[in-house]
């Protein structure tokens, strides 16, 4: 049988200042890790939420992003008639020719401005996304007009891009006529406008960026992608739209790597703090350790008891860490997307799995920090332990 857990709990409470300070140190490391994981999860979630499972993205061969892709109107006319492309109620292929460019938008935090994706598309292109996107303020842009609809993330972060405001880009002024809620998808950080108006504005009437095709089913989708990729005359790449966005999660990797490195460095510091606390506890309770041994508790029971106490300490740290990081949940922010060279807005997400990771992280800090002092306490000879007070 083990030394009762109440012994450890009450000892932690008896030296509450030391306990709180150590737990807070561990909590800060946990909060750091959680905020990084929340950012990566938010980014992953934003990209994972983008793309219909049957949509195929078509770009110029070798292009890694719509921004550096070109697709001629003529090519689009050919690819939309390929077998496997779904048709709408009018019998027209579900296909969208699109033009993607970037504009510089200022916000109060970054007056020099940030690149934002502008997507020119037709009503057919919008219809291919209408299950994910709804207009929450104003109305849809009208074709042939210099009107834009902005994603909710853009409207929230850029005061100059709110409903009714004029945006300056290309050859002149564009009016914000609507705000669209695209859930957590990438469209939340984009500006939508009429394809032909934008093409004219950018002098790209014949050469646009990409095409989106809706396949009839999964098998046809694979066949369609192979057909397009194998057609040397078309010289295009075709990939699932969902994969195209999922791959952009890589944009968060540099921050993730730095963040995790900082969290690990902080964890090592917290681990030493936990170790110091447990060394002090073992030294202060030396006579108690001796007494427990005289009563018949084994060295292993002493070791277990002190490691458990350190784990309890780190558990408290994990709770602090979660409480510190929780206000970040759903906080909207943006990150430079290394694929599109524009900003992707997304919400930080602290999920139960991320909190569980934080708890595991804290327990590793506590376990490793407590192990050496616990082993040292357990190794003491009974008489030495009894005399050290």
């Amino acid at each position, binding site marked *: *049988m*083990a*030394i*009762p857990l*109440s*012994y450890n709990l*009450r*000892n932690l409470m*008896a030296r509450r200042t030391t306990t709180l300070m150590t737990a807070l140190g561990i909590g800060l490391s946990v909060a750091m890790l959680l905020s990084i994981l929340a950012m990566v999860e938010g980014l992953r979630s934003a990209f994972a939420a983008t793309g219909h499972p049957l949509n195929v993205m078509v770009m110029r061969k070798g292009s890694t992003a719509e921004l550096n892709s070109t697709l001629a109107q003529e090519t689009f006319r050919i690819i939309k008639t390929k077998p496997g492309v779904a048709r709408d109620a009018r019998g027209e292929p579900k296909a969208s020719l699109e033009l993607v460019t970037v504009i510089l938008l200022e916000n109060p935090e970054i007056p020099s401005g940030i690149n934002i994706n502008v997507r020119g598309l037709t009503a057919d292109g919008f219809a291919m996304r209408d299950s994910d996107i709804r207009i929450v303020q104003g109305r849809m842009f009208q074709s042939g007009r210099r009107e834009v609809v902005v994603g909710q993330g853009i409207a929230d972060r850029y005061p100059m891009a709110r409903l009714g405001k004029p945006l300056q880009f290309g050859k002149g002024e564009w009016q914000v006529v609507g705000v669209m809620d695209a859930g957590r998808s990438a469209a939340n950080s984009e500006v939508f406008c009429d394809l032909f108006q934008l093409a004219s504005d950018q002098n790209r009437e014949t050469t646009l960026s990409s095409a989106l095709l809706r396949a009839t089913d999964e098998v046809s989708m694979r066949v369609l992608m192979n057909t397009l990729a194998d057609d040397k005359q078309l010289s295009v790449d075709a990939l699932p739209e969902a994969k195209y966005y999922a791959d952009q999660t890589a944009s968060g990797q540099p921050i993730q790597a730095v963040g995790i490195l900082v969290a690990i460095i902080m964890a090592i510091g917290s681990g030493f703090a936990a170790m110091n606390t447990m060394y002090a506890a073992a030294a202060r309770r030396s*006579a*108690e350790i*001796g*007494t*427990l*041994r*005289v*009563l*018949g*508790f*084994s*060295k292993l029971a002493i070791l277990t008891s002190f490691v458990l106490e350190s784990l309890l300490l780190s558990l408290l740290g994990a709770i602090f860490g979660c409480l510190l990081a929780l206000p970040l949940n759903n906080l909207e922010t943006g990150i430079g997307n290394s694929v599109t060279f524009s900003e992707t807005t997304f919400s930080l997400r602290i999920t139960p799995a991320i909190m569980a990771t934080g708890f595991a992280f804290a327990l590793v800090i506590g376990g490793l920090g407590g192990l050496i002092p616990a082993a040292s306490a357990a190794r003491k*000879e*009974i*008489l030495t332990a*009894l005399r050290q007070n």
Partner: protein
Amino acid sequence: MSEVVIETRNLTKEFARDEFRIAALKHASIQINKGDFVALMGPSGSGKSTLLHLIAAMDRPSNGDIRVLGEDLRSLSDGAIARWRNAHVGFIFQSFNLLPVLTALENVELPLKLTRMAKSERTAHATKALQLVGLGERLTHTPRQLSGGQEQRVAIARAIVTDPDLILADEPTGNLDAASARDVLEMLVTLNKEFGKTIVMVTHDPHSAKSASSVRYLEKGELLPPGAKPVDWDA
């Protein structure tokens, strides 16, 4: 013929101090029978506590033989000694050595945690032991809420809760006022006379030693023959 509880032969304990070896106990041979109440006396540094610690297997001898309750303590592993001590020996310290964050009841219950007793049974046993030492009303008090005498009574309850064959006490009245010391000694006498416990008590107080049925003296690490006292021992 009485059953032998403790038997030592040429028991020696040496400690290393720098390049020197200091003998704390030299060739001590003693036999203590079941039901004896023996006081070990002597000046500071005479080796009386060392002998007690060896009997309790809290330390290992450098030389000689020691058998306690039929066990050759030198042949037992650390784990086996811990189990043996829990089952057969109750130890009373001079400074009580209660765990300050636990209540009186929890302190007394501690040795029972190492047995197979159910929680309810453990609580019943610990409560009874505390009632025996007159602290039935103080079960939920922590050591800080008790007087020195009461703390030592809790320590006695902890020492007897497993119903051990042997009780070892190291200066049990050393930190107590006269009245509390008298209470503690009366309890030890009761445990010896009424419950048949074998008791070995280290003390430097001649008054305390009078409670024992026999006294053995030590001087400069040597156990003196029965009846002999250290030179200049004026007590």
